[in-house]
């Protein structure tokens, strides 16, 4: 009989029961946060049982998105099968977005697009070419959102129903209701639980309202602890089936990935 998932976290036991796909993490340093060496980051993945991590570079977030995207490609090359890439683009530099998308997606390790909440709103025309690219290539888009302010991301999702939009930091600032409302309204709007804090009963509230088929999980490492973020879900008072979906199955579907192929050593559910 398999162990209840909460026991893995209680005991610090590597999650070996099913594949885990981290849909929101980073590589490189950030202001105030010195990143672990990539080797140590992979060791933490091994210790916790996180198989694959979809990453963008914080260097790209800081503005140098071409060099940041190159770091992502390099991480994926150094650790085959452990990293998927988000190509990060910014509408602050609108003329560079499409060429950068075309450059990155020539490399198959890139599987999604990342945008950040600076500059123009997500529903401004500058982003139209990005959403069109995502639609044409069947790519999910992950966006930083904060405190229930979608800054146009929900409107972009509404205008582009064929594209899957992942709203990062759902519930941040303890503002869970706007995220729930947007997800209930828009079937292509996914909630990403990545968030430094662990507000009591918030994961349970979001799962109860939205359902695990519209929720993904990310660690945001190396900005903060992978184990802490994983533990939030493993300890949540939701079913183990919901935990499996949130920790991998839903993201795999969004990315169009075969979970069994990602972690063949684990007993993936069909």
């Amino acid at each position, binding site marked *: 009989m398999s162990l209840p998932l909460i026991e893995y976290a209680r005991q610090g036991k590597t999650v070996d029961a099913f594949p885990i796909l981290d849909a929101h993490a980073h590589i490189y340093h950030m202001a105030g946060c010195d990143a672990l060496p990539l080797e140590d980051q992979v060791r933490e993945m091994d210790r916790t049982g996180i198989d694959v991590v979809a990453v963008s570079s914080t260097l790209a977030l800081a503005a140098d998105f071409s060099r940041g995207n190159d770091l992502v490609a390099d991480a994926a090359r150094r650790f085959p099968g452990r990293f998927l890439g988000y190509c990060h683009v910014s509408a602050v530099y609108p003329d560079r977005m499409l060429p950068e998308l075309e450059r990155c997606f020539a490399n198959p390790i890139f599987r999604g697009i990342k945008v950040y909440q600076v500059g123009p709103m997500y529903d401004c025309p500058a982003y139209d070419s990005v959403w069109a690219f995502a639609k044409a290539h069947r790519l999910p888009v992950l966006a930083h959102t904060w405190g229930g302010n979608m800054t146009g991301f929900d409107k972009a999702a509404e205008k582009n129903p064929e594209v899957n939009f992942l709203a990062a930091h759902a519930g941040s600032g303890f503002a869970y209701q706007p995220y729930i409302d947007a997800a209930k309204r828009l079937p292509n709007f996914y909630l990403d639980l990545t968030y430094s804090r662990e507000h009591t009963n918030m994961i349970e509230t979001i799962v109860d309202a939205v359902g695990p088929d519209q929720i993904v999980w990310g660690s945001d*490492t190396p900005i*903060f602890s992978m*184990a802490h973020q994983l533990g939030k879900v493993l300890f949540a008072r939701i079913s183990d089936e919901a935990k499996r979906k949130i920790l991998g199955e839903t993201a795999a579907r969004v990315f169009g990935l075969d979970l069994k192929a990602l972690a063949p050593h684990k007993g993936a559910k069909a």
Partner: protein
Amino acid sequence: MEILDCFCGVGDWATKDPILPSRTDEIVRLMDHCGVAKALVYHNAMKFCGWAPDANRQIVEICQKNPRFIPAFVMGLHPHDGETTLGDYLAALKASKGKAIWLRLPATPYRQARSYASWLIGDWLRACSEKRIPVFFHAEDDDPTLFHTLCSEFPELRLILTGVQYAGDSYLYPLLKQHRQLRVCLGHMYIPSGCPGRFLKHFKADRLLFGSGLPEFSPGGMIAHVQYADIPDADKARILGGNLQELMQEVRL
């Protein structure tokens, strides 16, 4: 290993979000779910204009009814004749088997003191130093210079910072290196990547304490943060409960 939570509030408060727990049975259920044996608790009323002597009386009553709670008092300054004195606070703390004092609570617009300088609260800090009473301070928005000053002026003060952020290492490490009695609580949210393993390359495990931040924050993620760390089991046990146990045993009231 016995998990002890050093950072927990119980009881009702005015600004509570509807999904948060406040009642003792709700908190105990969460502790059971996460495997937390006991918690050092303050009263939540102090988060929104509560009056310290009343909040402390309430927390004593709650702890008397529930042996899994250990009282932590909140500091109050009362300049008027006939009001509660520092001596009264310490006597009440001793009578209730209380084990800590909060100088500043989290999630509150109200400060327990208008200033934390020694001219104002020096007698409190001297008493806590002499009696080895752990003193908690929610650091979230404060200038680290305040903690440096407190620790410099009261080097034996067992000051425990809560609310240190994941990006706090740049000031936390220099503070910890200079002040041997300064400690840091994991809650909520001292969760930098690689911690606590990375932390223990610089400091001993006795400087880190597990604390959840209940009722605003659940304990689970923080427990996983320690349990998955690449550190010896003995250090995990210290962080998750041993350090708090030791600090409480050393109180000399």
